[in-house]
């Protein structure tokens, strides 16, 4: 049994990391908004999905104009991801303006904002579905395959009881881009003036506004950054898995939210860690669960396994893994 798990390990780590970094970046969107507004923005998963679709549209447009053959794929990819990130960033700011700010101004209970976010999530799903279906009547969109060069990691010859692992060039891309995003966000929050303003608003909104911080603008910036990161991750998701549909944001959003809770909601580094951990756990369970339980539970129970771990963590550390280690909330 142990031998089987070990053999698999390199491949499981690679696949788990891919999924994990995607969860991590989406989780940041949840955690940032929660840190500042104490609002769980359930629409965030669908902002991620919208990003994937915007990316697909831009990619198809560029392809139609012949850019894909004329330019290196990497440049096309950068154009796509930047456009998608800016568009979803604006979308996030727009959602905040239209749906959340009026509620906040009227001092509505937090529950109302939560329900509103669920409503926005449905609106986004169906709006995207409607647009995607217009042309073919089929809302599953398949992106042109890019970065599908295959790499073989020869772990076997170094450490004999591991099996060899394979990954695609897109895995490297996902990993590098997300790490760049995570590091720059961390620097932004901790080292810049805007970052300091965000942390101040997170700690005490009223006092921050007395210190000449424009609270509404800080909130807008937070939504912009969170949504732009989510949208960019959507593009990465599209490139990694090739196929998207309007409902990818739902399951993924819930899992990313879970990751944020696991890391301690409101804490950015916690969300990163929680995301990667959840991705690894899930992939580990999918690959090994039936071996561990001798076939009693198959791979279909991977989510149950991941969530049992989550519950166990929360029983012993209700504030999440990083909840107390860092005092500030953003």
């Amino acid at each position, binding site marked *: 049994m142990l031998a*089987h798990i070990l*053999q*698999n390990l390199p*491949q*499981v780590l690679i*696949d788990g990391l*891919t*999924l994990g970094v995607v969860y991590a970046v989406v989780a940041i969107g949840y955690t940032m908004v929660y840190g500042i507004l104490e609002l769980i923005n359930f629409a965030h998963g669908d902002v991620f999905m919208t990003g994937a679709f915007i990316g697909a549209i831009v990619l198809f447009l560029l392809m139609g104009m012949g850019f894909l053959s004329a330019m290196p794929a990497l440049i096309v990819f950068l154009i796509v991801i930047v456009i998608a990130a800016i568009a979803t960033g604006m979308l996030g700011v727009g959602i905040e*303006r*239209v749906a959340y*700010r*009026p509620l906040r101004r009227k001092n509505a209970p937090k529950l109302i904002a939560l329900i509103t976010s669920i409503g926005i999530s449905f609106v986004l799903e169906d709006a995207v*579905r409607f647009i995607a*279906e217009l042309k073919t*009547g*089929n*809302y*599953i969109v*398949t992106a042109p*395959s890019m970065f*599908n060069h*295959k790499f*073989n990691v020869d772990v076997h010859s170094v450490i004999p009881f591991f*099996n060899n692992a*394979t990954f*695609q060039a897109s895995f490297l891309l996902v990993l590098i881009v997300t790490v760049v995003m995570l590091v720059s966000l961390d620097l932004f929050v901790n080292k810049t003036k805007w970052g300091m303003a965000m942390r101040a608003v997170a700690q005490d909104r009223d006092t921050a506004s007395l210190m000449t911080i424009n609270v509404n603008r800080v909130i807008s910036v937070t939504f912009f950054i969170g949504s732009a990161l989510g949208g960019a991750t959507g593009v990465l*998701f599209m490139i990694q*898995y*090739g*196929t*998207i*549909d309007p*409902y*990818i944001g739902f*399951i993924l959003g819930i899992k990313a939210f879970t990751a944020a809770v696991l890391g301690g909601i409101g804490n950015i580094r916690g969300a990163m860690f929680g995301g990667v951990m959840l991705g690894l756990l*899930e*992939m*580990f*369970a*999918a*690959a*090994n669960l*039936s*071996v561990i339980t001798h076939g009693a539970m*198959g*791979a*279909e129970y*991977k*989510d149950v396994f991941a969530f049992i771990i989550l519950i166990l963590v929360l029983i012993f550390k209700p504030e999440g893994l990083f909840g107390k280690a860092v005092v500030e909330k953003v």
Partner: protein
Amino acid sequence: MNFKKIIPLLAVVVLLLGVIGGCSSKSGGSNGKTVIEIGSQSPLSGGSATLGDAIRLGAELAIDDQKAAFAKKGFTIKLNYVDDQGDPKKGVANAQILASDKDVLALVGHLNSGVAIPSSEVYEKNNLPMVSPATTATDVTDRGLKTVNRICARDDFQGPAGANYAVKTLKAKKIFVIQDKTAYGSGLADQFRKQAKKLGAEIVGYEGITVGEKDFNGVLSQAMTKKPDLIYFGGVYAEGGLIIKQARQKGFNGPIMGGDGLDSSSTVQIAGDAVKGVYLTSVAGDVTKTEKGQEFAKKYKDKFDKNVESYSAYGYDAAGVILKGLMNAINDNDGKKPSREQVEKAIRAVQDYDGVTTKVSFDDKGDNKFAKVYIYNFEQAKYPPVQKAEISQ
């Protein structure tokens, strides 16, 4: 009025306009003729819209073709199609609506067994006969309902036929089975596994996945350590295409086999080049093989500007069987509009109907005696795949 009030207002106005636009009124214009409607239920939106739409268009073509014959008898026939979204709840709700419409005398549908089974309970209560072009689960007809018929083969024929081919022709000794936990997917995978075991193949794994997910690397990693000769997938193309693609990325070069859920151009679209070497069993034959079929494909392309899908011809033949039964019922009723009970009996009684893709004779359960299973192989990354074998009961 300020900006932030205008936006919600606009949203509401647009929404209302949409609703009003959607409710276009039913036009009359039957020229004093009696209207008979044939219902149709299949998923027109959602993951399997490609297949569902093919069924609807096939049925529409059949009705167009025979309009004149019915007009002579003083009837206007119309297709009344609704979208079941591949969702059992929606299917049952639609079934209630269709059943309460007295003009609807028969129905073409469904695509999904999971939708057909609960919906047919409603049809049975209302004596509304249904002819399904595509539902393969055994339970669809095994409940012995008077109204339920199908022109395609059953899963306890399709699954074993696939297993026979996998073990005998492809010489697979170690098989890894993945299923999508739906009535269709797990039913088919179970039938496949049973027969493959009987033939002496070793089932090295039997795993489930969740419909709607995109990452199946975990299950496939597990499959790869078992080193199977063949991977079998019971499910539909949305997940199947991705499983094919991700398995090839993991370096699995052996054959991958699936059921009729993979029989769609979308499989190729999703899996891309990886689809080479994929085998599938389908209850739908390749229409372009016969002269009659080619003619049908051409007519279909002319009318709808779409290529035929696997189930287009089955939609056509299902509607054809209904129309034949209906015509017989009209004749037996001295040229007057028959009741649903009469149509129901007339459809079940149809013998040796010669359609574009299959002959139809119903047995006493409503299964088609002439239903066949076909084995296909994607030799190139294009649809349709190449037909390898044809298996009769």
